[in-house]
Every structure is written in C-alpha cells, then in structure tokens.
C-alpha cells in the first residue's frame, strides 16, 4: 500500500465516522441531504463518482416523483374516479358516491393511443392522439398569445410620450415611456426579415441590437443572482439545518 492510498483510506475513514456521528445526532435524512449536497458540490473540483451517484439519484427520483404525482393526483381522481367512482372508493372515499362520467372514456382512449408509441408496429396510432394534443394546443395558444402577448402588449407599449400627473410634468415616466417605445420599435425592426438593414432602417436595426444586448446583460445579471441565491440556500442548509452553526 502506497502512502497516497493510505492517506485516502484514512480520509474516507474519518469522513465515514463523521457522517455516522451526524446520523446519530441529526438523523438520517438531514445527513443524507447534506451528503448529497456535498457530493454535487464536489463537481466544482472535478468529475467524480460521488457527483455521478447524486446526479443519477436526482434524475431517477424526480422522474419517479412526477410519475407518482401524475398517477395519484390526476389519473386516479380525475380519470378512474370519474369513469367508475367505486373503483377509487378504497383510496379516496370522498369520491365513491359521485356519478359516473362516460365522457371520460375519450381521454382514456386517447391516453392508450399515446402509449402505443411503445410498440414498433402500432406506433403510428400514437400520432392521432399526438395530433389531437398538438392541434388543440396550437389553437388555444394562437388566441392566447395574440391576446396576451400581441394586442395587450400594443396597448401597454403605446403609452403617452409626454406624461403629466398631479404634480405637473413627470420627467421619469416620460423617459421611461420613450425608452420602452423606442426599444420595442427597434427590436421589431431588427426582427423584420423582409427588408435589408440599410439606411434609416439599418440604423433602427442596429439600435435594436443594442437594446437586445442590454436585455441580455440584464438577463445575465439576473441569472447570476438566481444562481447565487440557490447557493446561499444550500449553504444555509449545510450550516444551519445540518451543522447548526447559524443562530
């Protein structure tokens, strides 16, 4: 055994003992949470098996969690519970006396059609159900987007460029409205593909790029803030919930 191997074994021994003490003092789940957090953090140094273990555990657990929630929260009460309520009686007694709804056969059939995707021969059947989903979603979204992101946004952008309030002329609001208006117009010019960006139109497009870059900068800054918040949250868990070092 080399010295390096010996040092590694000693290190692991110490870590195992520390975690064992933690389990005794703080309980298994808090300790396991801390272990997983540290395992993920270890990636900052380099890729390693602990990181891989934590990552795979996370992927597997979250997939299973969504599936369970979907089954017990939606399939059971909203599909089986309405198709044949006595069936869910033992799990959700509140629903067992509800009237049966034969229309729920339609989503059931569509659902089964979607699952046909798993079969190599009958896979094409799933396309019908998928077409239904895509068609309905596209129809719903067309109207919603036109309303919320198009028409409503026009009226939100077309603000007075000279604002007066009870105190007289409002410089702040005026500048704010002008910036919004110019920003939107230049952004739209940039994304206008039917005309080459030359002359005044080109100048508008260049201003549009500047507006976009400022937006991306702000977005980048916000992302940094979000990531640091998550880091602080994890640190709070390690220092407070696990080690009890805060307050």
């Amino acid at each position, binding site marked *: 055994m080399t010295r390096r191997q010996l040092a590694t074994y000693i290190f692991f021994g110490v870590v195992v003992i520390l975690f064992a003490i933690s389990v005794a003092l703080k309980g298994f789940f808090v300790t396991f949470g801390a272990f997983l957090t540290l395992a993920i953090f270890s990636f900052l140094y380099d890729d390693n098996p602990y990181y891989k273990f934590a990552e795979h555990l996370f992927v597997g657990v979250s997939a299973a969690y969504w599936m369970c929630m979907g089954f017990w929260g939606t399939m059971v009460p909203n599909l089986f519970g309405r198709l044949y309520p006595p069936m869910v009686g033992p799990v959700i007694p509140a629903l067992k006396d509800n009237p049966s709804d034969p229309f729920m056969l339609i989503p059931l059939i569509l659902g089964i059609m979607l699952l046909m995707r798993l079969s190599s021969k009958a896979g094409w059947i799933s396309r019908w159900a998928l077409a239904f989903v895509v068609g309905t979603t596209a129809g719903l979204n*067309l109207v919603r987007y036109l*309303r919320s992101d198009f028409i409503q946004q026009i009226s939100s952008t077309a603000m*007075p460029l000279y604002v007066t309030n009870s105190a007289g002329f409002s410089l702040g609001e005026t500048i704010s409205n002008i910036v919004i*208006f110019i920003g939107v117009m230049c952004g739209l*010019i940039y*994304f*206008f593909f039917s005309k*080459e960006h030359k002359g005044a139109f080109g100048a508008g497009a260049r201003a549009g790029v500047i507006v976009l870059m400022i937006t991306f900068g702000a*977005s*980048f800054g916000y992302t940094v803030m979000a990531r640091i918040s998550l880091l602080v949250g994890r640190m709070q868990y390690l220092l407070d919930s696990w080690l009890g070092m805060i307050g």
Partner: protein
Amino acid sequence: MKHKLRFAAVLLFLPLIFSPLLAQEGEEMQDGLLAEMQIEPPPQAVITVAEDMPNDGGHKLTVRWEFPKEFTSSVVRFEVYRAYSPDGEFVLRGESPNDFYEYLDIGDREEESPNYMPNDSSYYYKIVAVGTEGVSSESEVGGPYKTYGQWFHTGKVPLLIAVILFCIFTIYFVLSAKGGKELYIRPLAGIEAVDEAIGRATEMGKPILYVLGIGTAAEIATIASFTILGRVAKKVAEYQTSLIVPCYEPIVMSVAQDIVRSAYLEAGRPDQYDEDSVFFVTNAQFAYVAGVNGIMVRDLPATNFYLGYFAAESLLLAETGNAIGAIQIAGTDQVSQLPFFVVACDYTLIGEELYAASAYLGRDPLLLGSLKAEDWAKGILMVLMVLIILAVLLGWDAPREWIRVNL
C-alpha cells in the same frame, strides 16, 4: 261614574307619581325606548333599473337605484335582495357601500351551484337601506328584469381581427411560395458565416461539430435546426470535411441521419457518408453535456454549431468550445439561454432569426410563408403603435381603448 273617572285619573297619574322611582330602577331600559322613538329609518331607495351584463352567458345583472344624497351619512350600507317572483322569497345577494348606488349581481351557470342564476330568466330586486342604529327601510320591489346570454363577445373584436388577418397572411404567403413566387428574406450574419466556418475547418483539416440541442423532434427550434443541418452537411460533403453530430434524442438522431445522408447524396458524394457521424449519446441532460464536451476536447473541432432547443447546458457547451478555440455559431429560441450564447459564441441567431435562417436556407414554402406572415404582422404592429402614440400625443386617447381586448 265620578268614582270611575277618579280611578282613571289616578291610574293615569300613577306612573308620573312613581316615575322617579321607575327611573332609578330601570334607567337603561327607558333610555333605549326613548332613543328608539327618536330614530327615524332612512328614506327608501328607488330601484331604477337592473341591466343585463353585456358580453356574458346571461348570468349577471347590474342593479342600479337612486337615493337622496343628503341622507348618505344616515345609511351604513345597502343590501341587495333578489327573488324569482314579486312575492317570492327574497334572498340576500350582497352589499354595496352607502355612497354607491349600484350592484353587480353575479350568478353561476352551473345548475347544481347554490349561486345558480339561469340564463334568460326574470328576476325581482329589493334594496334595503340599513341605517346607522340598525333601523332600515326597504325599497319597493323592482322588476321583472331579464338576463340574456350573448352569442358574440364584442370586446373580443380586436382579437378576431388579429386572428383573421394573421391567418389570411399565412395562407396567402404559403400559397404564393408554393406557386413559385420569389419571397425576399434578408441575409443573416450568422448564416453567411456558415460557409466561412466550414471553409476554415477544411483548411485546418479538423472536423465540424453540429449540436441539435436537447429538444424533441417536434420542437420548432429542432425542426429549424434540421434544415440548417441539411445545408451544413451538403457543404461538408462538398468540401470533404468530417462532420460530428452527437444526439440527445433517439428520434432526433434518426431524422438527423436521414438528413445528412440525403445531403451527401445531393452533393454527389454518397460514398463518403459515414453512418457513425450521427450518433446517440444519452438522454440525460448533463451526461450529454459531459459527452459532447469530451468529444470537443478530444477531437478539437474547428467549428461548432449549437442550433436548436437549449436549456442549462448552453453555457457549459459554449464555454468548452470557446476554450478549444473553435469558431462557434449558435442559435436558439430560448430567451433565457441567449445571453450565454451571445457571450461565448462568434455568431448567435437570436430567437426568430433561427427560424428565418432555416427558411432562408431551406426555401420551404411553409416556413417562408409563415415568416413572411409574421413580418407583415410585425409591420402592422409597428404602424399601429406609431399611430396610437401620435393620437395619444394629440390628446386623443380613444384608439388606445379600441385595441384593448375588453373581457
């Protein structure tokens, strides 16, 4: 008779004689009685109308009434009662503040709801003005007032116009493109760089890496990326450079294989197509990143393309590509990922530019037509905004209200 009169007189005066005593014994009770005698109920409200709420299914009525303003302070609130007939049971529907002579009675459309208010029915109302000391006065019964359901929501007219216009534009331009009409799309910087980047890879004798993102084959960004991949693969075949396409999704991989194979065929070099150039890596997001980054570090491609749907892996990929010194061209419709591509790549197709690039390169009538329709929608939007702003500046606020979708 005289005795009777005297007896009556004594009876009449007895309370007066004993009044101080009574006052001592039941002062509070007397005060209450006196107060009640002095307080007068507020005047009656007069129901003027109950109008059907426009643009609904017929389950709402707006009740209005009149009340003398000088008595506002003597009223705490108005209570609104409703019945199905003038002599039926009046049920409390709600309250209105003492200075507001209007109440919107909202019912439910479901029959089983306790708040059910059937469409096309008659209702009778009564307003109770509740005074300051609990005394109140009831109005005369008003009615019958009817609810009607409307077939057409007039507040949604702007939306209808927008939908019709957009559909007309799309159909017209798609048909025009199919009919062979030349539709102009301006050249995009990112796309012009494609040929240059492929040429650079050829000169350096290094491969080209094409990443389709982590979207499914149904994702619009992935579909747009497929078109660009076709163009890139054709150029690669012409220049005899090698291409690496690591895939995240099995279906995306099989589509990509078909595209690259056809591109080599189109370029007249089907023999040079390598089946293994388009391959599946893994379906786990960060494992996929690790895999692609590994390829980058080992094979050192001269040019990297990241076109399609991207999430948190965008920066991880672009940063590694930047570190190996590759020319990088990226494009996605995911706004939150664009900043990362912008800082780490040489060219970035921002949002809609990805679709435009796909239409520009592929010349597919459906894509071209939709893009043109969108341009027209944007044009109308710009003109509308300028006109409304001008109107508002001239002190005419009405156009701003016209386009608002009133719901």
